[in-house]
């Protein structure tokens, strides 16, 4: 992945206003955070292939970055983003910690993101 270039991300977000997009949103501390440090409260979430549509989409901050998408009935918000890849209309945003481990992610794609081993097989 490459370090986020905010103008590239903003151009993508502007281009996809009012477009149905499949989203993958995630935060994670890894599955072993509490095992490694009993005082650490582990928390995480992911939601994959939920379809969203936004009227305003912006990237803010000076790195790590925040992205907020104003949805018809709410918001999608992710903070801590550091790196990106763009594959045509598929945008991958990720936040990596100092050891290079994934901490958060936001992926947007007009097409469904792949699910499961069968599709991996087919690729």
């Amino acid at each position, binding site marked *: 992945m490459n370090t986020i270039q905010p103008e590239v991300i903003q151009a993508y977000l502007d281009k996809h206003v009012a477009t149905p997009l499949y989203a993958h949103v995630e935060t*994670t501390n890894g599955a*072993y955070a509490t095992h490694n440090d009993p005082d650490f409260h582990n928390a995480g979430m992911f939601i994959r292939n939920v379809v969203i549509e936004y009227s305003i989409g912006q990237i803010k901050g000076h790195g790590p970055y925040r992205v907020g998408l104003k949805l018809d009935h709410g918001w999608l918000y992710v903070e801590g983003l550091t790196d990106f890849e763009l594959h045509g209309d598929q945008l991958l945003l990720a936040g990596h910690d100092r050891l290079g481990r994934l*901490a958060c992610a936001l992926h947007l794609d007009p097409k469904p993101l792949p699910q499961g081993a069968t599709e991996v097989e087919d690729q």
Partner: protein
Amino acid sequence: MTGPLLVIFPHPDDEAYSSAGTIIQHQKNGHPVTYVCLTLGEMGRNMGSPIFTTREELPKNRKHELEAACAVMGISDLQMWGLRDKTVEFEDEAELAARFRALIDNVKPARVISFYPGYAVHPDHEATARAVVRALQEMDATVRPEFLGVAFDHRTETELGKPHVIIEVGDEYAAKREALLAHRSQTEALLRSIDNAENAHVMELLQRERFYHYPFS
């Protein structure tokens, strides 16, 4: 131990850390090894050290890594069941146990290796362990294969005592290290720290594979 070995774990690399030496010794003794890996570790947070992949590419990387690791360990029958990482505990446990039972009836293993329920730390590990034990519990004791459970919760030795079976990796350590290294996206940073002697206790764990028998009723 004579006869086939059946290994069941949820994530590519679970087998290499816990059991590579045992697996290699089995197949070198002429016994076939079947490995059922439930997910592709799609949700792992390690993206390589340095980073070389993304959340979307990781399943493909880990599938290739798994195949390479199995080649190193001489696993002849690798089955990828296509569940999704982090979701095993939300599947129907009875259904998963029934699939394991059908697998056991088909492979006819002398020994089954998986996680030990209650002491396996990760929710996917626990869910796998519960379903494996459930499948074995339902078998007649006279035909039930030996079960070796991997336990690594901090409570393990206090509550379960010393491991019931310890397998010295010995001369197979180089091959075990190669199998671990095959899971490059997940293991590179750890192996580097072992090479720098920062993790003597991990080295010790990797060289002596520890298992517990389960008290089936």
